[in-house]
C-alpha cells in the first residue's frame, strides 16, 4: 500500500480529531465517595444473600465449621464434580478436552469477592478449564466468605485487579433468559443452577 493512502486507523483517528466537540473535563472526585450505596439497613451478608437469591441462586449461610458439610451436601449424588476448591475433591470428571466438560454435572469453586448490592461474585482465572466449566457444567457451587463481601461495584473494582487474568467475570445466579414472552427461564445456555455457600464470620 502506498504511503499516501491513509490507513483506516489514520482516517478514523483524523475524523475523530476533526469531529471532537469541545473537551469535557473528567470529574476527578472518587466515585465511591459520591455514590456509595447507603443500603436498606440490612447487614452486608444479609443484603448479599437476598440479592443472590433474587438473581436465581439458592443460598446457604453457614459457619466456618459447617462449610465442608454444606459443600458435601451440595455435591451429594452428583455423577461428576470438577473442583477448584480445597473444600471438595474432583471426582469422575470428564477427560481433559474443554468440550468434554459439556458432560460435567457440577463445578465447585471459591471466590475472593462478593458484591452485596447485586449478589454477584468475582471469578477470575487463567485456567481455561475452570472458565469452560463455569458455563458448561449443569450446575455450579461457589463458596464465598463474609469477609470477602463488599457493598457495591465501586468497592469491588477498588479491590480486584481485572488485569490479573485474561478472564474474569461477575457471576450473579444461574444462566437465565426471558426472551420468550418475558417468561423467566432459569438455565438458558449456561448452568441451570447456582448454589451459593456463604460462610459467616
Amino acid at each position, binding site marked *: 500500500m502506498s504511503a499516501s493512502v491513509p490507513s483506516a*486507523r489514520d*482516517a*478514523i*483517528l483524523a*475524523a*475523530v*480529531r476533526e*469531529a*471532537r466537540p469541545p*473537551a*469535557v*473535563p*473528567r*470529574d476527578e472526585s472518587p*466515585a*465511591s465517595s459520591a*455514590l456509595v*450505596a*447507603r*443500603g*436498606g439497613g440490612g447487614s452486608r451478608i444479609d443484603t448479599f444473600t437476598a440479592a443472590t437469591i*433474587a*438473581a436465581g441462586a439458592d443460598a446457604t449461610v453457614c459457619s466456618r465449621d459447617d462449610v465442608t458439610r454444606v459443600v458435601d451436601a451440595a455435591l451429594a449424588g452428583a455423577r461428576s464434580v470438577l473442583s477448584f476448591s480445597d473444600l471438595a475433591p474432583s471426582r469422575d470428571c470428564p477427560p481433559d478436552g474443554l468440550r468434554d466438560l459439556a458432560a460435567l454435572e457440577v463445578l465447585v469453586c471459591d471466590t475472593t469477592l462478593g*458484591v452485596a*448490592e*447485586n*449478589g*454477584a461474585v468475582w471469578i*477470575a482465572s487463567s485456567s*481455561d478449564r475452570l*472458565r*469452560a466449566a*463455569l*458455563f*458448561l457444567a449443569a450446575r455450579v457451587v461457589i463458596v464465598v466468605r463474609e469477609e470477602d463481601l463488599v457493598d*457495591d*461495584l*465501586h468497592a*469491588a473494582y477498588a479491590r480486584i485487579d*481485572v488485569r490479573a487474568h*485474561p*478472564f*474474569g467475570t*461477575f*457471576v*450473579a445466579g*444461574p*444462566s*437465565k*433468559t*426471558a*426472551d*420468550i*414472552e*418475558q*417468561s423467566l*427461564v432459569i438455565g*438458558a*445456555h*449456561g448452568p441451570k443452577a447456582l448454589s451459593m455457600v456463604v460462610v459467616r464470620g
Partner: protein
Amino acid sequence: MTQRSFPLPVVGVGGRIDHPAAAAAFNADVARTDWHDASLWFVREKRDRAASTVPDWEALRARASAIKEHALTHLDEYLVRFEENATQNGMQVHWARDADEHNRIVHGILAAAGARKLVKSKSMLTEECGLNPYLEARGIEVVDTDLGERIVQLRGEGPSHIVMPAIHLRKEEVGATFHDKLGTPAGLADPNALAGAAREHLRQRFLAADCTLTGVNFAIAETGGFVVCTNEGNADLGMALAPIHIASMGIEKVIPRVEDLGVFLRLLARSATGQAVTAYSTHVHGPRVGQALHVVLVDNGRTRQLAREEFWRSLKCIRCGACMNTCPIYRRSGGHSYGSTVPGPIGSVLTPGLDLDRYATLPFASTLCGSCTAVCPVKIDLDTQLFRWRQRVVENGSVSLAKRVAIDGSTRVLDRPRLFRTLGKLARVGLRILPAPLARRAAGAWGRTREAPVPPSQSFRAWYRRHRGGAA
C-alpha cells in the same frame, strides 16, 4: 417459510420509511398491540423498582453522562490508549471505516483460518453492518446464540428490540418456529420447554464452532480489556471454547478507566431489565492460550455524528433499551415499524444522521413527552434531539407539501390578530352548522376518531372585550 406475524417496515416513495403506515398496520391487531404495550410497560416498571433500590440513582446517571461526555470529547486519545493496551494484552486490533470494511475484516480473519462455523452473541453493530448475510454468502455458517436473536434468525426476521429481540412474538409463534426448524412437538408453547430445546440445539453449535464473534458493552482504555454482559452465558460459551474470538465494537464504546465500570454496570441491567446486574459480566484482557483474539473498531458514521453539535450526545448510549420500554409510541408500534437497526427514541436520533430523507418520519414518531430522556441512564437529551432532527428534516425538504402549506398558512393567520379572529369565528360557525359527517370529514385525520371541540358562541377575546373593556 414461516408466516410473518408482524408488518415489515413500510417503505414509501423514494425509499422513505413510513412509520405512521407501519404503526397503523401494527395497530390493526388491537389485542396484540395491547399485549406488546403491556409487556414493555412491565419492563419499565421493573426498571423503576430496581432504580428505587439505589439511593444515589440520579447522581449515578449524572456521573455516567459526565464520564461518557469526557470520553467522547477525548475519543481519539482513548482509542489509541485502548489499542496500545489491548495489543500488549495479546489482542489484534483492527479498524474499519464502514460496514463493508468491517465485514471484509471479519471474513478475512475467518477465511485465513479456514473457519466456517461461527457462533455469535448479541451485537447490534453487526446487525447494522449486515454481517450475517455477508458471511453466509461466503460459505460461513452463522448461528446467533442469544435466544431472542436465534428465534428471529430462524424466522428470517430482524430483532425488534435491542435487548429483547423477540419481544414482539407470542410463545405460540416461537413454538411454531421451533416445530418447523428444530423439530419440537407441534403446539408446544411452554417457554421452559422451548428454551430447553434451544439449549440443546445451541449447545451442539457451541461445541462444533471454530470461531466466535461477540459484541462489546464497554472497552476499557486504561487496561486494554473489554466487557461483555449477558444473562444466558452464550457469549461466554463461545469465548471459552472457540479458537478464534472476534469482538466487534463501535468506537463510541470505549471508556477511560476500570473504575468507570462500577458506574455503568450499576446502571445497565437495572435500566435494561430491572435486574441488579446481568448473570455474567465478563471482562476479557487477553486471549486464551492458543486462541486468536481480534477486536474490530468500527466508525460507520459515528465520527459524522460526533461532529454534529446538536446530536453527538446520542453517542453516549450504552444500549440498555430503557427508552424503548418507556416510549408510548414504541410500545404501540413495535420495533420493526422504524425500519432501522436500532429503533425507538435512540434509533430516531441515531439513524436520521445516516440518511435524513429515508428516516424523515422517525423524529416525528414521538409526542416529545420526555419519558425517554428521564429514563436514559446516561442522560441523553433525547427529546431535544428529536425536536432538532425535525428541523433538519424540514430544512432538507423531507416533509410533505401539504404540511408545509398548512404550517405556512397557519403561521400567517396566527401572526395577524384580526385575520385570526375572523377565521376563528368562521371555524366555530362552520363547526356548529355543518352536519356531523361532513364536519368529521372536514376535520381530516382528527375527525376519524375524535369529535372536534364543541364550538362556543364567542371567543375569549370577544368576551374579554365585552366584559373587561378590551386589552390594556
